């Protein structure tokens, strides 16, 4: 078995995992199951990043999305009631009309996606850690600092929003 064949099989499995789990999030009525499917989608996406040769981004993906964001969402699921409810817009009589409008756009997007080709010159090779670190800490050092301020503001905002008043 050649390396290219294995790569294609892995890509196909990851694609099935991503699309299937994402469809499950939208279609499933159990919110806990949807949250776990979201974690699975993020894990498959990390595999996609490894396939593209971006190992550092894949590590961040596992740490931040599969670790932190899934836990946060599960906390949100824990604190809110889970009530079965019919979908807002599914299976109504406008569905054929909607399909008529959506199908041309879907065909256009599918055809347009296949027009992207790899650059003729060999792109980035090897690990992406060194060029990524060079870019973040030299060329994008100021946005990096702004991002830290954004995280601090978000943390303070989240604490203030969910804090109970003492005199209640």
């Amino acid at each position, binding site marked *: 078995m050649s390396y290219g064949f294995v790569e294609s099989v892995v890509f196909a499995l990851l694609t099935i995992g991503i699309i299937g789990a994402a469809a499950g*999030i939208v279609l499933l009525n159990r919110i806990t199951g949807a949250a776990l499917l*979201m974690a699975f989608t*993020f894990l498959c996406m990390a595999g996609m990043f490894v396939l593209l040769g971006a190992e550092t981004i894949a590590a961040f993906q596992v740490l931040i999305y599969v670790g932190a964001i899934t836990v946060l969402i599960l906390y949100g699921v824990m604190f809110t009631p889970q009530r079965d409810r019919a979908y807002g817009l599914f299976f109504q009589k406008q569905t054929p009309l909607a399909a008529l409008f959506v199908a041309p756009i879907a065909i256009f997007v599918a055809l347009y996606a*296949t027009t992207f080709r*790899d650059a003729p010159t060999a792109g980035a090779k090897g690990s992406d850690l060194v060029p990524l670190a060079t870019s973040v800490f030299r060329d994008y050092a100021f946005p990096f600092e702004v991002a830290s301020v954004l*995280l601090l503001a978000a943390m303070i905002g989240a604490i203030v*929003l969910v804090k109970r008043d003492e005199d209640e």
Partner: protein
Amino acid sequence: MSAIPLGAFIAVSAVLFFIGVAGVLVRRNAVVILMCVELMLNATNLALVAFSRRAGIADERGSVFVVFIFVVAAAEVAVGLAIVLASYRNRPTVDVDELHSMKG
């Protein structure tokens, strides 16, 4: 060159993005809507990384944007869940159809 063309990654990214859009439009639970927003952000990440690795640029410009999207996504989900929990404390529902007190 790699066995998988760049277009395949972009197609997966587009499909995942539209699944996220459909989820935001169709689901009425605020927590599930947050999950679908995360799906859309992740689809964008895939497109950015694919272009960054395959476009033949020497530096990792696209991956830098992905790092900043990670930061913004973490901030967004923290503040979003805080808003959902604060609104749930005032009115015991997370159904976005029933949260219409600010509607004109």
